[in-house]
């Protein structure tokens, strides 16, 4: 075993850049995924067949196939149909489209948990559609949806490591590059694991805090 901490001094800037990219892709991908998932979930809960059938197919495809294969299709197969995206874009969009399939289910479950009587009541009060979503549905749904959303954010954070396989220069990619150049494998990967562990634990802590805050109106 040849390993010393001076490696991290040499490779430090590269690794920090990788970590930054991991976080940026994670946040962008999750934000886009939540937005798209929200729209899809809302459309699903509306229950029109013309909408639900294509959305169901979308969800089945993205939940039924590995993210890695989806990324291969987009990154290596895209140019064949004239969609040549760089690795970063494929990473963000791949994560977003993959996450949206799961977020859609989370939001659909949230919307379906609201008693229809509330919507009828709001309508009879003359509250407009968007105001109904914003002031009546969302506050209730968020309380229910925060734990599964946190869960999904953690899954997406971990899945950013998969992007290294399609050459996105994020943290795992940089560490892999370092191990190949230095022939030191076990320790760098182990430390990498600890970094991800820290990030996921921090995320789940934030999720618990958000749960407490959003649910505070429920406390008696």
């Amino acid at each position, binding site marked *: 075993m040849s390993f010393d901490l001076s490696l991290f001094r040499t490779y430090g800037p590269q690794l920090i850049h990788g970590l930054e990219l991991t976080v940026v892709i994670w946040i962008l991908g999750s934000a886009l995924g939540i937005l798209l998932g929200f729209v899809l979930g809302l459309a699903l809960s509306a229950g029109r067949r013309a909408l639900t059938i294509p959305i169901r197919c979308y969800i*089945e*495809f993205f939940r039924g*196939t*590995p993210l890695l294969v989806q990324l*291969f299709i987009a990154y*290596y197969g895209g140019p064949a149909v004239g969609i040549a995206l760089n690795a970063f874009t494929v990473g963000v969009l791949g994560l977003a489209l993959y996450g949206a399939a799961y977020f859609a289910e989370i939001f659909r479950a949230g919307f379906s948990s609201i008693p229809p009587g509330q919507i009828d009541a709001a309508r009879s009060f003359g509250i407009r559609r968007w105001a109904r979503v914003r002031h009546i549905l969302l506050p209730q749904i968020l309380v229910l949806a925060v734990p599964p959303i946190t869960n999904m954010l953690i899954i997406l954070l971990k899945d950013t*490591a998969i992007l290294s396989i399609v050459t996105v220069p994020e943290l795992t990619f940089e560490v892999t590059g370092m191990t190949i150049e230095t022939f030191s494998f076990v320790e760098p*990967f182990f430390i990498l694991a600890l970094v991800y*562990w820290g990030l996921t634990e921090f995320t789940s802590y934030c999720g618990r805090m958000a749960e407490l805050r959003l649910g505070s109106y429920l406390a008696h």
Partner: protein
Amino acid sequence: MSPGFLNSPIIEGVTILLLGAGTTVILSCFVIVLGIIVAIPLCLMRLSKRRWLRSSAGAYVSFFRGVPLLVQLLVIYYFLPVLGLDLPPFVAAVIGLGLCTGAYQAENLRGGFLIIPLGQEEAGRAFGYTGAQIHRYILIPQALRAAFPALMNEAILILKASSLVSVVGVADLTRASQNIVARDLHPLGWYAAAALIYLVINLGLAMFGRAAERRLGAGFATVSP
């Protein structure tokens, strides 16, 4: 059939793809079994009265659920030789995926244990069962049955996650599609074909899960929610 037909790159590619799919399925089966073997003691430790057992199992679960599977596979792939174990990639991949899914299955199983009324354990003790017998004959069978839907869900996740073993050199479905693409340069078609095979297997698993759940539930008086 003419030899020319058999030599056609499409037939050959599909054959390679299906062989890869076979490897993926066999690997996933081994992983699920190893996961259950890991999960049962892990779950019992999580529910133990001894604090150090609880916290060490908790740390295991938190680590394996908090670290990307790809990174776990890389650690295990390079760590096993350090221990002097020179295992083939397939075995290393089964161990890596199995240790990871064990953490998830332990949590599912814990949910299964928690729904068993405490009175059953007390009744078992009143009948003179030993602790091991109570677990073997009363608690574990019920917990496994209660955790079955979650286990089927986990099986689908494992099948998808197994695509990552292509990175550590196992010729699974994903690796097979990469190999074909490297030769005949039609990435879109072959990767889409691989995705389709994953999708079909997963839809089949989901259908099997629902059917099995109905059968397992047959002897159970259930309260509809």
